[in-house]
């Protein structure tokens, strides 16, 4: 577990480091003819060099949109309003010129997208597409680029890389396509990898392999990684720090041990608690009651309060949106009016995923 974690994040408490990526108050709203959907509603967090930040949340929590906005990759057909700042390498990516963003995409920040089945151009050979990732940022001869491409495919564990290089995506399996996506992501040794649900579309048996590939890739390139997932087990295994998102907000952020041992937000508690237990005497699953809010009509106050066991209908929860505030240890923040009441709650969860995962 901890020993297999990528690139250790041994931080001395109190030590101040410069974040590699700093997202400040990001808001992304989609406007259709009839409504405005607040997909990301004031998100701020930092990513430090060499670490893996896990971003957890249900579908619709805004985790993918946040990271896509970093690279300004929201599809052009949507009418999107973005505000806030995304600081990287000394500039605000949201304000950068098109040429600047293109320079950063693929070279400094790379995206490993969500669904490997639809992410490759079906009419071009795989090798050509890998080569494209290289040629986008370097003036190399085609032959050299091809050679590097084949090496990349081998690095991510594709057997017979040379032969496979000349095949089409439909001749690859899902797991292999995901490996290709990773290969394209690390092709230019970026300093930040964004892995969006890298294992969600894959079989359980393949998932572990893919995570190994990612781990190796990250280690070899010494990159930071933002790992987006709704799979808590994955996060527990891979991440150094965790940000929990709900309805377009970050509701809790802490290092991974703290998040699982002493969560300070009812939603996080609910998430952990809803995991199936392999130990203990639980007979039933404990889901969080209710469903995520309609992002076109976000309720006032805390976005989670309609489903919150802690709220108990208190006025503060209904009326004012809680800020992300420090609770407990210095780097532990939670957006709950009554986070203090959850102190020691982690103990109540007998045998959390923290011990159970492999």
């Amino acid at each position, binding site marked *: 577990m901890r020993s297999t974690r990528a690139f250790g994040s041994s931080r001395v408490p109190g030590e101040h480091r410069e974040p590699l990526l700093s997202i400040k108050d990001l808001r992304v709203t989609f406007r259709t003819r009839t409504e405005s959907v607040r997909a990301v509603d004031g998100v701020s967090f930092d990513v430090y060099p060499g670490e893996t930040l896990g971003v957890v949340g249900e579908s619709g929590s805004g985790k993918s949109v946040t990271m896509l906005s970093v*690279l300004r*990759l929201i*599809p*052009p*057909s949507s009418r999107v309003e973005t505000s806030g700042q995304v600081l990287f390498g000394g500039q605000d990516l949201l304000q950068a010129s*098109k040429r600047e*963003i*293109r*320079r*950063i*995409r*693929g*070279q400094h920040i*790379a*995206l490993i*997208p*969500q*669904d490997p089945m*639809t*992410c*490759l*151009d*079906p*009419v*071009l050979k795989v090798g050509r597409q890998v080569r*494209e*990732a290289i040629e*986008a*940022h370097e003036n190399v001869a085609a032959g050299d680029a091809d050679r590097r491409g084949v090496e990349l495919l081998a690095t991510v564990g594709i057997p017979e890389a040379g032969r496979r290089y000349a095949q*089409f995506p*439909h001749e690859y399996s899902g797991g292999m396509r995901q490996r290709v*996506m990773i290969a*394209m992501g690390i092709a230019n040794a970026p300093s930040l990898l964004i892995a969006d649900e890298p294992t969600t579309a894959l079989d359980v048996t393949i998932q572990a392999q893919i995570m190994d590939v990612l781990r190796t890739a990250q280690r070899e390139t010494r990159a930071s990684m933002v790992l987006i997932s709704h799979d808590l087990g994955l996060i527990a295994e891979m991440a150094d720090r965790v940000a929990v998102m709900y309805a377009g907000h970050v509701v809790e952020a802490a290092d991974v041990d703290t998040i699982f041992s002493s969560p300070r937000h009812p939603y996080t508690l609910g998430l952990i608690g809803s995991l199936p237990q392999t130990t203990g005497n639980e007979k039933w699953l404990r889901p969080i009651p209710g469903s995520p809010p309609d992002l076109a009509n976000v309720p006032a106050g805390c976005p989670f309060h309609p489903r919150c066991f802690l709220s108990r209908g208190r006025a503060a929860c209904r009326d004012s949106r809680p800020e992300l505030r420090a609770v407990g240890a210095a780097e532990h923040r939670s957006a709950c009016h009554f986070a203090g009441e959850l102190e020691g709650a982690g103990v109540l969860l007998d045998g959390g995923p923290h011990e159970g995962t492999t």
Partner: protein
Amino acid sequence: MSGFSSYLVRRLAAAVITLLGVILVMVLLVRALPGDAARVIAGLQATPEQVEQVRLSLGLDRPVPVQYWRYVVNVAHGSLGTSARFETSVLSEIGHRLPYTIVLAVCGTLFGAVFGIALGVLAATHKGRWFDALGSMLGVAGISMPVYWLGILLIVLFSVQLRWLPIGGADGLASLVMPTITLGVFSMAVVSRMTRSTMLDTLDQDYVRTVRAKGVAEWVAVRHALRNAFIPILTVIGLQFGTLLGGAVLTETVFSWPGIGQLLVQSINNRDFPLVQGIVFVFAAMFIVLNIVTDLLYSVVDPRVRLYR
């Protein structure tokens, strides 16, 4: 037999069946001619002997199945009968003029395809802006435009007023310009509408986002999208050819272009039914061949398509 050959054979067999159907329709129609078909074909000045001759040579004295069979046999032997008016073989009459029609049709299709795709891509990449609105207005206008009116307007402008281009006939490249434009405008409008909607669809796809994420220029992403959009666009271009053939008849008339379209009109006016039959048969055959060619092109454009299953 390899998969591909057997596919080809199957398509050709289906084509033959359709052509047989076309011949049947034609034969039935000639039989349905009000009055005495042989007399009509021979012409009003014909003597009774000539009328009889026509009747015999066309098999009009025999029952329909026999007439039909004779025609099919003739076709299989490469003959389409004799023109009543010109007294030469239908095949040679058509043969002289077919190249002109093909040239015109090909040029018209190319014109429509090239400009249609260009306009469609531009409209899709500038969606919502003035170019897009202009493009869709032109698109609707293009499919509403009567071919012959456009041709005439072009003649009035470029031949009569400006005297830049010849009025008609088929000598030299200059005389090809206006007919091509006239014929191609409708096709261009249809293709551009189709291109725009397909491109809008593909530009949103995940793999285009992946391409952008690699940090390439936008036009590279557009190229990826276009390559994928090509299949439905190709379908439309292929379908347009059929419409084009119809438009060719009118265009050739307007510009006195010596193709089989003009010949068709003349032969209808002359009641020269063998010739009419022959031309219709050739048109149908061209259309069917084109369908097959279009399908074959699919497998080139899209590696996932394997026509033989």
